[in-house]
C-alpha cells in the first residue's frame, strides 16, 4: 500500500529552481533512501514534503492531499522531519525538546509514556534530560533530534543527512535505531544521505536525485551492486 505519493513536484528559491517535476511513491512500512550529491536537491525535497518550502505539484499522504496544507497539519497527519544539521532547540533542555516534539498532542499522560519509551531507546538522553540540547555532543544531538521527531507519533519519519559530521561508530548506532524502528515498529522511513554505501545496506528502495531530477529508482540491494549508477550519480 502506498503511504506517500508525490506527482510532478517542483520547488524553487526565488529564480533558482531546485526541484523539477519529481514523482515517486513510498510504500507503507518501507525504508527508502534518497541519495544524491551535494546540492542535488535532497534537502529541498524534504522541506517541500514537510511544508516549510513552497512547492507545486501534488503530494498525497495516507490517502489525503497535503500540498495546500501548512506544516503543522502535515505533522498532525503523521509526517515528521528531522532537518539537516542539528535539528534540536539548542537553548532548551533535552526534556523540553521532547515536549516540543509532542506539542501537537494533548494527552499529557500519553506524552509522558512516550518520553519514557524513547528514553529507554536512547538511554544517554535520559542521563542528560535536564541539560541544554546545545551542550550535548553531535551524536547525542542527532539522537535527540530523532527522538524529538518520534514524539509526534509519525507514520513517516524523514531524516536529512543523519550522518553529517558524526563519527562512523555513532552513525552506525543511529542506523541501527532506524533499522529497529523499521523492522520492529514497522515505521516508514525516508532517509536522505550522501553516504550511499551505508544507507543502501539498510534501505529497501533507493531514489537518486541529481540537479533536481529523480534519475534512478531501484531496490537498494541492486543499487548497492550497480557500479554504473554509483559511478555516474553518486561519485563513488
Amino acid at each position: 500500500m502506498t503511504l506517500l505519493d508525490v506527482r510532478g513536484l517542483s520547488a524553487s528559491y526565488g529564480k533558482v529552481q531546485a526541484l523539477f517535476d519529481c514523482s515517486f511513491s513510498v510504500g507503507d512500512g518501507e525504508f527508502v533512501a534518497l541519495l544524491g550529491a551535494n546540492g542535488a536537491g535532497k534537502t529541498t525535497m524534504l522541506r517541500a514534503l514537510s511544508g516549510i518550502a513552497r512547492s507545486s505539484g501534488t503530494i498525497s499522504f495516507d490517502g489525503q492531499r497535503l500540498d495546500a496544507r501548512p506544516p503543522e497539519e502535515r505533522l498532525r497527519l503523521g509526517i515528521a522531519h528531522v532537518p539537516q544539521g542539528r535539528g534540536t532547540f539548542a537553548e532548551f533542555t533535552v526534556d523540553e525538546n521532547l515536549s516540543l516534539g509532542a506539542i501537537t498532542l494533548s494527552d499529557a499522560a500519553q506524552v509522558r509514556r512516550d518520553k519514557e519509551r524513547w528514553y529507554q531507546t536512547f538511554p544517554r538522553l535520559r542521563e542528560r534530560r535536564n541539560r541544554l540540547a546545545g551542550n550535548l555532543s553531535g551524536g547525542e544531538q542527532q539522537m535527540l533530534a530523532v527522538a524529538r521527531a518520534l514524539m509526534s507519533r509519525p507514520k513517516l519519519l524523514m531524516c536529512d543527512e543523519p550522518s553529517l559530521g558524526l563519527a562512523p561508530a555513532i552513525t552506525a548506532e543511529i542506523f541501527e535505531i532506524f533499522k529497529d524502528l523499521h523492522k520492529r515498529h514497522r515505521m516508514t522511513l525516508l532517509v536522505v544521505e550522501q553516504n550511499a554505501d551505508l544507507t543502501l545496506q539498510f534501505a529497501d528502495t533507493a531514489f537518486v536525485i541529481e540537479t533536481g531530477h529523480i534519475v534512478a529508482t531501484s531496490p537498494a540491494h541492486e543499487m548497492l551492486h550497480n557500479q554504473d549508477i554509483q559511478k555516474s550519480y553518486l561519485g563513488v
Partner: protein
Amino acid sequence: MSLFFQLVVSGLASGAIYAALAIALVLIFRATSIVNFGQGEMATFSAYCTWQMINWGVPVWLSLLICLAASFIVGIIVFRSFIQPLIGAPIEAMVVVTLGLFVLFQAVTMWIWGADQRAFPSIFPDGGIAIGGVQVRISALGTLLALAIAALSIGLVFRFTRLGLSMRASAYDRTKSMLVGIKVQRMLMLGWGLAAVIGMIAAVLIAPRLLLSPTMMTPILFYGLAAATLGGWDSPFGAVVGGLLVGVAESLGGSYLPMVGAELRIVVPIALTLIILLVKPVGLFGSYKVTKL
C-alpha cells in the same frame, strides 16, 4: 542614610515601571526581532481607554480588566495589520514601521482626548508605612508588587505550560518550530498581544504620578529601552533586573552627583548601561545571538 533608603525605594518603584515596559519590549524582540518603538504610546492609549471607562462610571477594577483585554486585542491587530505582512523585510523597514506606530498611537490619543493632562486615579491607597525607620509610600510598594506578580506569572507560564513552551520555541527558531507543528504566526501574535497588556500595566502604574497625557510614556520608553539593553534583549528576567537597576541608578545619581543634578539625571542610566555593555556587550543576561538591530 535614611535619605539613601528613601531614594532606593523610590528608584525601585520607578524601576518597576521601566521593567514592565522593558519586559514588553523584550517579549516582542524575542518573538519577532523587532524593537517596538511604539510600545509606550500603545500603552498610553490603553491607559486613556481605562481613564475613559472610569470617567463613565465603570468601577476601576472592571475598567482595568476590560482594557487589559482590549489592549491584548489591539496588540494582535497591530501585529496582524502592520507587522505580519512585513516579516522578512529589511530591519530598517521595521524600525520605521514601529516609529510609525509611535506617531500613529500618539496622534490617535491626541485626536480623541486632546493634549490636556488628566488626573488618573491610583489603584493603591494613599499614605505610607514605616519600614525600619524609613517612610515608604504604599503606592511604591504596590507598584513593586504588581511588577512582581506580572513578571512571576509570565515566568511561570513560559516555563511550565505548553503554550509558554510554544511561544519560547517560536521566538527561538521559526523553522524548527514549524517542523514540530507549532502555529508560529499565532504564537508571535500572542506575543504582541501579551506585550501590549504588560505595556498597559506600566502605563496605569505610572499615570497617577505623571498625570495622563498623550506624551506621558515618551520619556519612559527610553528608560525601558535602556533597561532591556542593560538586561539583555532576549531575557525577560534581564529586563526586570535592568529596569530596577536603571530606576535606582537614576534616583541615586540625580541626588548624589552634583554635576548631574535633576536636569541631567537621564545621563546616569545611559552611563550605567554603557559601562555594563563595555564589559558585557550583550547585556547582563543576554546571549550572544543578539547583536543586529
